[in-house]
């Protein structure tokens, strides 16, 4: 279990988080949803250790991160980009083995020698997904990772993400403001209120993952969330 306890964070006179507490269940996907600028990314960056909170306690482990942008090094090929964070934690042979394994999981084994500049946006994000899964961290953070992709590619990438996650579950905290993405991915969806961020409602989703796209229960939940968000 990962925990954020009584976290406060201010930027100048703006209070983004005030006495915020959240526990994150192990090996589940927790999705934080809320309006833009409600402090979702700040929460994620506190979990990642990129930002220090002004007050409060964070219980966390090594983290992996799937960013909104692929954030690949343009001068390294896909193989070296995926392997980059592994080189300091695994032995050389293991790195190559793991890179191959995860590239095949995301369906990019034929692109290992390509440079990011030669890939489409979807493929770049796929490579970033391989990197995020390959990095041996118990906690995976995601900041709207499918946002900048067009609908078809976005759905396919979400499906692949869930498929890989089912084969090797780990604790995931994802941030989004896309309702469908939240309900499709999450085991738990937490709706946040604006500055300072507060938990407005917490849903546990027990709809089977196989039929979530287009399911009536999912659509009902999306409508409910939408109404709550508009209040």
């Amino acid at each position, binding site marked *: 279990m990962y925990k954020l306890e009584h976290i406060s964070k201010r930027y100048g006179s703006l209070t983004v988080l005030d006495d915020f507490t959240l526990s994150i269940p192990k090996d589940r996907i927790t999705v934080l949803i809320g309006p833009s600028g409600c402090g979702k990314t700040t929460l994620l960056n506190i979990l*990642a*250790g*990129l930002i220090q909170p002004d007050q409060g306690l964070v219980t966390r482990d*090594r*983290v*992996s*991160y799937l*960013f909104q*942008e692929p*954030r690949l*090094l*343009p*001068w*390294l*090929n896909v193989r070296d980009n995926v392997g*980059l*964070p592994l*080189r*300091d*934690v695994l032995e050389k042979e293991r790195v190559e083995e793991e890179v191959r394994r995860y590239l095949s999981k995301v369906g990019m084994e034929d692109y290992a*020698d*390509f*440079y*990011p*500049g*030669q890939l489409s946006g979807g493929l770049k994000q796929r490579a970033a997904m391989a990197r995020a899964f390959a*990095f041996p961290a118990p906690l995976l953070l995601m900041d709207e990772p499918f946002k900048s992709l067009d609908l078809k590619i976005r759905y396919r990438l979400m499906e692949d993400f869930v498929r890989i996650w089912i084969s090797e579950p780990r604790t995931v905290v994802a941030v989004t403001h896309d309702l469908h993405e939240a309900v499709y991915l999450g085991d738990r969806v937490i709706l946040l209120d604006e500055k300072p961020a507060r938990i407005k409602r917490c849903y546990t989703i027990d709809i089977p993952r196989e039929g979530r796209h287009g399911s009536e229960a999912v659509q009902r939940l999306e409508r409910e969330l939408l109404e709550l968000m508009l209040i």
Partner: protein
Amino acid sequence: MKISTTARNLWLGTAALAGVAILWHIAALRVGLPVILPGPSAVFSRLATMICEPNFWCHVGATLLRGLAGFLLSLAVGTAVGLVAGIFPTLEALFRPLIVVLRSTPSMAFIVLALIWFKGDWVTLFVIFLVVFPIIAQNVIEGVRNIDRELLEMVTVFHVGKLRRLTVLYLPSVASYLAAGIAAGLGITWKVLIAAEVFAYPRTGIGTQMDTARVYLETDKVFAWSLVVIAIGLCFDYAVRAVSRKQEETRKGNRHV
């Protein structure tokens, strides 16, 4: 027929040089005194005889060695200082005034001081270092400052080791700035080196030869040596451009696999 931009630029460049040569020829005819202004034909024939002399390559070699030694020293120290100053803001605050002072000091001041303090090749080494080091360091600092914040965040999150960060993120990001620094630094190296050689008067060297020619009123020789220096500068400039173009292609990830 369609002419490529490169070919067109080459033609324009050649035309401009030919224009200068024609004006030079006319001016030389008008002056009528080769001691004051020798014509292009006199200078080129002097250059041809000089190249055939056995000592010619000796002087060129000595100047090249001095220039490269000074430049490589400045490149190594400038890159190292630029990287640490770029990464640690406190060190930048420490180095920046020094760099500004060095860049604003006339190179003649360095030459005169070097003549007082040092002997032999140390004079040229010292002068080149003080002129080129700040150019390289400043470019590298600028490069570090412009490293993509998002990529920096990425390597931080994934706990990429310090040495690996240097080789996979810092150095490639800084490369284009460093290339600009190298081009500017090399260009100025030959200028200050010749000036330093004229004053330090080492046994061999283009600067020494130019000053000897001045003493014997061999103005055509002065011109011919100047052409040699220009040729050296152009060769290095071309090489640097070619390398940095290739490196830029790799950086942008457009290299073919």
